[in-house]
């Protein structure tokens, strides 16, 4: 079989059925990659990875997904899987480079700067600044729960990522939401 695989030179001879499966899977993973890579990238930034690391890690995670699916792993919720692996991989990257300072975007400074968003009113800017500060005041666990829930993970999935029970996830989320409302 010659190079029909995206213009690659002939590689290992896959069977027709295997080739079809692989193509469908590739398309699916490629589509999820299109849809979710920016969200994963941003999530990794919130974990403290620097932008180039975060981007590389995000790309790697989708390849891992493909490898796992090709191996036949049964992955029900691929988006949740991607965030779980991104979370762990992100923590590993951070742990390996403990000496490097974590990435800390100057969000408060940006939000305070009127030049940044002239189309926003002062009230809107203050609201966003308040929200940013409120989120920053959450405990790390509460913040993680909030980020992951906003990415669509269910409580058991978030619990898997963070090593806590689903009911604790619920409790952390509740506290986080209450904090947002109380402060802003």
């Amino acid at each position: 079989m010659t190079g029909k695989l995206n213009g690659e030179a002939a590689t290992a001879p896959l069977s027709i059925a295997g080739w079809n499966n692989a193509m469908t899977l590739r398309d699916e993973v490629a589509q999820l990659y299109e849809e979710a890579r920016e969200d994963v990238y941003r999530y990794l930034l919130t974990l403290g990875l620097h932008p180039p690391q975060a981007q590389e890690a995000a790309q790697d995670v989708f390849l891992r997904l493909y490898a796992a699916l090709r191996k036949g792993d049964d992955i029900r919720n691929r988006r949740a899987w991607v965030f779980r692996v991104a979370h762990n991989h992100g923590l590993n990257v951070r742990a390996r480079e403990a000496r490097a300072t974590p990435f800390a975007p100057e969000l408060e400074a940006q939000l305070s700067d009127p030049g940044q968003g002239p189309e926003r009113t002062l009230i809107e800017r203050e609201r966003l600044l308040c929200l940013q500060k409120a989120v920053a005041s959450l405990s790390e666990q509460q913040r993680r729960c909030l980020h992951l829930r906003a990415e669509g993970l269910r409580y058991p999935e978030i619990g898997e990522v963070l090593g806590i029970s689903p009911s604790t996830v619920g409790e952390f989320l509740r506290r986080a939401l209450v904090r947002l409302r109380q402060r802003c």
Partner: protein
Amino acid sequence: MERAQNIHASGEELLGLLDGELPDSEARRVRAHLEACWQCRESSEELQRGIADALLYRREVLQGHLPRPPSPWAGLHAGMAAIDAATQPSWAERLSRALRRWLPATAALAACAAAVYEWGPELTRNEPAAVAVPAPAVQPRAVETAPERALPGPGVPTLPQRAPQPEATPGDELRVWRALRALNADLGEPVEVKRESGRVVVSATGLSPARRDRLEEALDSLPRVELAWTASPAAETRPGHADVRVSARAGLSAIEERLGGRAALDRVADRVLLASDDLLARAHALHRLAERFPPTVEARLSAEEQDMLAALVQEHRQAFAEQSVELKQSVRPVLEALEAAVPGPAGQQPVSSVWQEHARQSLAVTQQLDRVLTALLAGEDAGPGEALAARVAAALAEVR
């Protein structure tokens, strides 16, 4: 357990209903209650406003202000093709075996091309150590950081030969603790770390496969580490107060009345005991570090390792402080209901400035607090509630 419909739904139940996380029977009950109760409906709407705020934050703050990805996104197809090529083992094996026999220099290169770099949750300890996949098309720049597995040089067989390694140092063990910290695996999970026969041995009992995989993933790249998993029928959750049920004791009826009913008492008790569990887990984690790295061992670490240890200790102490505040707040309604003095900040014991000693003290006071809280709320102590409450207040004051 049937609950009367005039008892309010908890915040957790309301959010659980909104998020579709309640079991059907509970969802039905809460929904029915919401039809009847304006207050709870208001509370639910307030939670929904909180959710809207969280989404606003995500959209306007995060999406709006986090830096854009620095490079154009690479296509995934080259990497996926490489993975496809590699998952044809019979061809690759045959080829690499043949080449290895006849052409040692090129064999390694062919083997590299044929092998797949598998890391992640699916990696098991039995697979030969992985080789980096040739996927330069995916990485938009030349690889500067070391990949998780080094590409073996020519002439080296795919199974890496481990050269005799030096003994594991306290610094090696410290790196393991740091990795466990990053996974929150040092709080009450059945994971043990010790140095034995020149290796840092990490053993754990009764972990779920998913959790094991996660730990392996984190620890695989650390030097001189060995993992030892034992299966056991034990559940993954750590022993805590989950099964403690507040019993109807004479001493508790006063609290029950003040708090507004049995359900309210249950909720407060659960919250208090959960918070105490968390605090105890932190105290144990700190204590373990103090035992593994007493001042004599700490002094022998390199400057970088000492910083690493200080960062770990600081993280735990910070969390301990935050959680002790939360615990004190959650116990407050109970103490107020019993009209016991709400604890002030000062305790009786002097606090040591040596962190290892402070860790020992913290563990002792936290355990004492946990004992009196359990006695008060689980009805284990037969004494009068007021005296017990005074002991709780005193124990709380010591936690700092």
